[in-house]
């Protein structure tokens, strides 16, 4: 079943490789992956959609949380969330279909970002399925060329972010209690 995982990650070389490596080592295929810096530019937010063997769903999140560069990995397939994707599309538009294309684009809330005698470049955002439909309709007008961003997902629940404080050299390992929440949630 598809799992949507949201990760808050240190913006460091190799961080992406570690996360993707966990997935590829298990022989799974990533359906979509997006990464960008957050407000704090030392961090990145990643959304990964991946088809995971059902009994491994929790294990994958735990393994990701174990990575040193990962501040938080959460499974968004369970709680409430919103997902959006963006599509950029070039549509060949002969004179006779230009108006029809623009009408359809308007229905899907798409914007024209370039217009030439050959056709249009369109931009649309929405849920993945809506964009699939949009692409299908545009294809009925002729050849299209398309680039999709992959899904970005935002959880609608506030998730507490727990970070480890700095450690003084020579000091003992940072100790925490209050395990109950974490343990109960994951089991």
């Amino acid at each position: 079943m598809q799992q949507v995982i949201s990760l808050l990650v240190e913006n460091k070389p190799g961080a992406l490789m570690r996360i993707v490596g966990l997935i590829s080592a298990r022989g799974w295929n990533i359906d979509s992956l997006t990464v960008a810096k957050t407000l704090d530019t030392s961090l990145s937010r990643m959304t990964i959609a991946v088809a995971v063997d059902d009994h491994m769903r929790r294990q994958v999140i735990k393994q990701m949380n174990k990575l040193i560069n990962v501040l938080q990995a959460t499974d968004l397939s369970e709680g409430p969330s919103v997902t959006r994707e963006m599509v950029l599309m070039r549509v060949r538009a002969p004179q006779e279909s230009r108006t029809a294309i623009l009408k359809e684009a308007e229905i899907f809330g798409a914007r024209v970002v370039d217009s030439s005698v050959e056709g249009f470049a369109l931009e649309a955002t929405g849920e993945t399925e809506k964009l699939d439909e949009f692409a299908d309709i545009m294809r009925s007008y002729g050849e299209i060329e398309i680039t999709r961003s992959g899904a970005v997902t935002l959880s609608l629940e506030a998730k507490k972010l727990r970070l480890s404080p700095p450690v003084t050299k020579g000091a003992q390992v940072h100790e925490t209690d209050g395990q109950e929440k974490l343990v109960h949630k994951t089991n």
Partner: protein
Amino acid sequence: MSNLMSGSKILLECLVREGVDTIYGYPGGVTIPFYDAMYDHPIRHVLVRHEQNAAFAAQGYVRATGKTGVCCATSGPGATNLTTGLVDALLDSIPIVALTGQVTSTLIGTDAFQEADTFGITRSATKHNFLIKNIADLPQAIHEAFYIASSGRPGPVLVDITKDVFQGNMQYNPVTSIHLPGYKVYTEGHTGQIRRAAQMMLEAERPMVYAGGGVIHSEASAELRELVELVDSPTVCTLMGLGALPGNHPNYISMPGMHGSYAANMGMYNTDLIIALGVRFDDRVTGRLKAFAPHAKVIHVDIDPSEISKNRNADLPIVGDVKRVLQKLNAVLREMNPSAMDRPGLRAWWKQVRDWKAEHPLEPSFSTTEIKPQHLMAEIERISKGEAIVATDVGQHQMWAAQHISFNKPRLWLTSGGLGSMGFGLPASVGAQMACPNQLVFCIVGDGGFQMSLPELATIVNHGLPIKIICMNNGYLGMVRQWQQLFYNNRLSQVTLDGFPDPVHLAAAYGFKGSTVSHPSQLRAALEMAVAEPGPYLLNVKVSPEENVYPMVPAGGAINEMVLGPPSPVEVPR
């Protein structure tokens, strides 16, 4: 200006600050500047004969002492040779820091001479790794590497350092703090869960403590002992956990699993409460998972949250350091005063466990004409009495050693458990003997695995290490032969080891003593002579070639369905 220090010197300074006294390594092109700085530095460098053995020797040092080990290799082939040793450390949670040289930063990505993508290759071979292209990042990375390797669930960490970083200079300011916001270590355990665990333990009628390598890593042997005495629970120690509870402790049963004892496996199958401490329900322990301990509830204590409910669902999970959790748990149990309780179920359980032990004891077999492998292990046990360090390789000899040699303390039994890497034994014994120069160290190897790290005999001689190398020579890749015999109609394919070198000449060629023993009546004297020898000794022990390790849970079988011995006399063509 005079405050400027080279990257190589800074690296050594950081190692000193981490308390490093020994590096196992092998130099090469890009690490020459580092080796130049080591030339007149107090840290001891041990030149092994292959980088894989640098990692294994560092592991031997760690496993015998609990300190973090260090190994070092050059770029390209040096780094790729290290990787087996890193994965081995990863699977057994052994803290080592591996330092590798990398080509000059401006050459990375050009297929430069001896360039390999070490950072990429070792991503999945380590707990974490670093690529350092800028000298300013070096000190921080080294201290982070040691912190990550040794804290939480320990493991190997690699720092790949470009040649220009070794050669560069900068003003060195010691690192005073490190910050890894995403690295969470949970040590304490949840108090409420701990209370519930204590309750469950005393309510159980058929408890079974299942203790593993985590108990040894967290130095929790004393706490484990108190726990099993308070709960009065039978206890099994896994291959990684041997010695966590003294082998002669009355509550100790033996090792469970594929080659575990009848009593241990029947106990694990029939228990109503598994108290799992620093273990991971490995398939070599559980057999067919669906049929494992079907009547049991599980309390699982582990520092790594991802181990909880990975293979077997935990009814009561406790994430924390086994030592800290057991300290708290024991305090709760003491308050409950279990010795005053009447626990009739427990009495019946103990009787059952003792009956199983008596029904099929793990007793060595003897013959008057040939040395049985079990006989060899029993003789080593007689000398060791649970006190010697025993490093093994991988195969039948490893299993017989685990079954028949006992350990009164942790950190005496050094074996490659998770990865099962042949070639581990000899270099591991090097690290252990260097760390514990006054200890008796046996290195028990098969005739196959011994030849995988044979060149380390030179290292042993160079450092005058009095290791007693006991080669259990069955003329076969014995463990593979056993499977071929039992499961592949005895079609022995590529398992015969012809051409084993004459041990007398082999040892002599390296400048020490060796001999062969093949008659059971001479075994004891031969072992005693080897031990009495002040230097290293190679004892080649010819054992019955077709002996199989029993009990055996066939792969995919349930642990209560052990094969206890050969079904009927089997014809084996010679």
